[in-house]
């Protein structure tokens, strides 16, 4: 009996389903720029450009 072979489509989809590089870069840059300052009991966010 002949054997059937299929391409594993799932792996291809999984590799495809991920965020763009620029989104990751934005998040990492955002994280670097964000600074939280504590004044007494209050917290302030500052973002460096």
């Amino acid at each position, binding site marked *: 009996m002949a054997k059937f072979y299929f391409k594993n489509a799932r792996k291809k989809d999984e590799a495809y389903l*991920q965020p763009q590089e620029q989104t*990751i870069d934005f998040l*990492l840059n955002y*994280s670097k720029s964000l*600074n939280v300052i504590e004044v007494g009991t209050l917290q302030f966010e500052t973002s460096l450009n």
Partner: protein
Amino acid sequence: MKEYTLSDAVLVNRYIQGDEAALATLIERHKQRIYSFIFSKVFDRDISEDIFQDTFIKVIKTLKRGKYNEEGKFLPWVMRIAHNLVIDHFRKGNRMPKFEDNGEFSIFSVISDSDLNAEKQLIKEQVEEELRNLIQELPTDQREVLIMRMYKDMSFKEISDKTGVSINTALGRMRYALINLRKVIDKNNIVLTN
């Protein structure tokens, strides 16, 4: 199965201490799973991208503010944030009118003319005419009250003053006028719809 040299808990701790590279490792480690989860709900790449970004902005803010309780559950926590943002997205979608960008944009899918068209206007006029004829069939006292209330928009107090009967009598006449109108409509199988 992949084995990581550093656990999520250690990386989170390092990030809180100021090691930015730890965040890059965390994102790299979980990006596919989180993005796939979001995409499986919204089925749109751009929206998934936005929600993924908003998810990590919340993660970054919470960690930097020192409000994250480390219980060894970093990924379930991030997934929960993503899940909540997906729900927010659908809630927002229900409130805002939108159109599908399928290449065939029609301005009428966004705006519409709420005025009646010629056919509906004609039907409306016919229905009103029939109703006026039916009202003429009512006893005089009932017809009088119904016309003053519905067409002249008078209050029952004003009707009572004008006709010289009590408010309760005016109310009663109005009630009987409506009952009698319904009876005539049912008896003659008249259809009064727009």
